[in-house]
């Protein structure tokens, strides 16, 4: 029998977010430059399991991720049963900066995917001084809804099953089967209405159209990596964003989709390592 602990440690942080007490799940691995990772809508920190197990990354970076409230092992705030969850740009930014301060991160690298990738653009625009570099995965200025979001939250449709069904095709068809289905499992475990609530930020409130040109990459370098098979934030969306942001560096990742770090950690890390090398000046 073999049994090995991974290098990841997870803890619960008691912290006030948005003026309310919260219990937030945080995990980390490695040491060095803090690399703060932001998961996709309706998912959680497990998406970064590949990064947190790769010694090439852990040698130079302290990889940190937290489950947003309502996600993964972070609880919703007390009284959640009487509210409809809806993620706004203002709240999302506030939570990230508050968490970064609470964890005493000194100008971390921020890396987010999907809603986290959109947030990466917001952080690059409004808070460049807080980060030493920003990496947007599957990041674009805007996504028009291409299906009726109300299907994600209604009692006569299983929310986990429909969420997984909605995102299954966003992954590269040749990404490893076990990693793809692990990624879908996270979606199947999401709480009712959380995916829909996150997409309020993604499709409406977090719209960055018309503002990308104001991002100053001299204040904080910006890297954009997007997977070829993503039809939510398409490669064209990312390349369009890169054209509008002077100094932004974009690369399209062949064969990958919307969840690069989770659907094919090995393939993704091959694209990420050169970016991390540049950030640490190697």
């Amino acid at each position, binding site marked *: 029998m073999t049994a090995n602990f991974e290098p990841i440690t997870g803890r619960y942080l008691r912290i006030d977010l948005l003026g309310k007490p919260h219990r937030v799940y945080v995990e980390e691995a490695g040491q060095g430059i803090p690399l703060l990772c932001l998961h996709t809508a309706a998912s959680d920190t497990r998406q970064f399991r590949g990064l947190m197990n790769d010694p090439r990354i852990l040698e130079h970076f302290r990889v940190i991720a937290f489950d947003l409230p309502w996600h993964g092992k972070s609880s919703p705030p007390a009284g959640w049963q009487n509210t409809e969850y809806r993620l706004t740009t203002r709240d999302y930014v506030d939570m990230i900066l508050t968490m970064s301060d609470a964890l005493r991160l000194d100008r971390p690298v921020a890396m987010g995917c999907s809603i986290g990738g959109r947030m990466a653009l917001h952080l690059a625009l409004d808070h460049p001084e807080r980060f030493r570099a920003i990496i947007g995965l599957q990041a674009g200025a805007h996504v028009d809804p*291409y*299906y*009726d979001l109300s*299907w994600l939250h209604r009692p*006569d*449709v*299983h929310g986990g*099953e*429909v969420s*997984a*069904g*909605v995102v*299954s*095709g*966003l992954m590269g*068809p*040749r990404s490893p*089967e076990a990693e*793809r*289905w692990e990624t879908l499992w996270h979606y199947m475990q999401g709480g009712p209405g959380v995916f829909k609530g996150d997409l309020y930020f993604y499709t409406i409130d977090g719209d960055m159209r018309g503002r990308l040109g104001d991002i100053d990459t001299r204040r904080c370098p910006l890297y954009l990596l997007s997977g*070829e*098979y*993503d*039809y*939510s934030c398409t*490669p064209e969306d990312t390349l369009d964003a890169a054209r509008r942001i002077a100094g932004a560096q974009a690369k399209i990742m062949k064969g990958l989709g919307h969840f690069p770090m989770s659907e094919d950690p090995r393939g993704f890390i091959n694209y990420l390592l050169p970016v991390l090398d540049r950030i640490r000046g190697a």
Partner: protein
Amino acid sequence: MSQPIANPIEQLQQRVNADEKLVWRGRYVDTVFWVETGDSDWLIRVAEGRIVSVKRGPLAMPSWRFALRAPRDAWDTFWLPLPPSGFHDLLAMAKRRVLRIEGDLHPFMANLLYFKGVMAAPRPRDAAEGAAR
């Protein structure tokens, strides 16, 4: 010598029913849906996840819950062993506006992984296993 298959959707019934895991995924599906492939229309009846019949149109007064409509070349691309990005998934084609998904979508959305698997079933067998399901 057997007749060549004119439309891959003609393989749907055999392919789906031979896939026990897919049938199990759709074990609560009892519905009728409509597929347009440009060159023809198809009325597909499902009972407990099995394809009961695939009838080629035109049909007099067909009744169905929902419809999937795309040109033949889009379906042919979708049914390639490894379809290019944008044609590898039903919602990807809907986002590109080459596939229209219409009607009473409850059975479709409540069983989305199942119907993605059903429509991908005509892909050649050596296609990436489970791709886009």
